[in-house]
């Protein structure tokens, strides 16, 4: 049952990523359309902090981070474990991927919350 559940989750997050990533790419690369400002301006420090204050952005980023990390790292685990590994190497891959995922999740979460709480001009 366990492998079925892991795979089902991998499949379930596909529409979540498709929608949220689509939104993220559209907002970033079509800033003139969505924000009425140039792409370069949209990437500026102040603009980025301002944008990061919206709750919507916080929620979208957190969801996208979790969904994208799970989906991508499940896929990576699949690719690595399809190689002929010794049982020790299998454990290394499994644990390594989980640790890496937790690290990126922690970093991404910290940065997103830092942006949400950051004071402009300081």
């Amino acid at each position, binding site marked *: 049952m366990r492998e079925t559940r892991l795979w089902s989750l991998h499949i379930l997050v*596909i529409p979540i990523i498709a929608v949220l990533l689509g939104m993220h790419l559209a907002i970033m690369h079509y800033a003139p359309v969505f924000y009425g400002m140039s792409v370069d301006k949209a*990437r500026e420090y102040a603009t980025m902090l301002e944008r990061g204050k919206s709750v919507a952005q916080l929620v979208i980023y957190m969801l996208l981070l979790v969904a994208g990390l799970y989906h*991508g790292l499940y896929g*990576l685990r699949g690719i690595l474990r399809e190689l002929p590994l010794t049982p020790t190497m299998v454990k290394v891959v499994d644990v390594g991927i989980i640790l890496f995922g937790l690290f990126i999740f922690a970093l991404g979460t910290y940065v997103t919350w830092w942006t949400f709480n950051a004071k402009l001009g300081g």
Partner: protein
Amino acid sequence: MNSNKPTGYDNRLGVKGWVYAGRYTFERYLYLGHRLSGLGLIAYMSLHIIETANRMRGEQAWAGLMGLFASPLFRVIEFLLFVMAVFHAMNGIRLLLVELGFFLGKPKEPVYPYSTSVLRHRPLTYVVMILAFVAVVLGSSSLFFK
């Protein structure tokens, strides 16, 4: 298992077998493209989270980073990443449907020449590839935004 029996010369194709294993059809190479684009995307995503964390080092560091990414080389890399993401997403939609058993037809007594589920869902493959192409063409308009 009889350990006296010779197992034989290792004839496994290995990782080369992911790339080429014989004269198979299109979907066999969509599998390869999906695998490569997936690896590229997870590598990019990890770097992206680490790179955007640079905002905590202050405005100067951030501006330097953005300046680097505005260079033509990086804009080309960015576009290639976009193409990779679109391919992976569109092919992923196809796999999502097909791996749950949709668009593959019904089990039927095989009559020669045999039809296979791979060929039966070819129309879906075409639709997905066309959508990917359209998305890339539309997305390339972003290259003109400054």
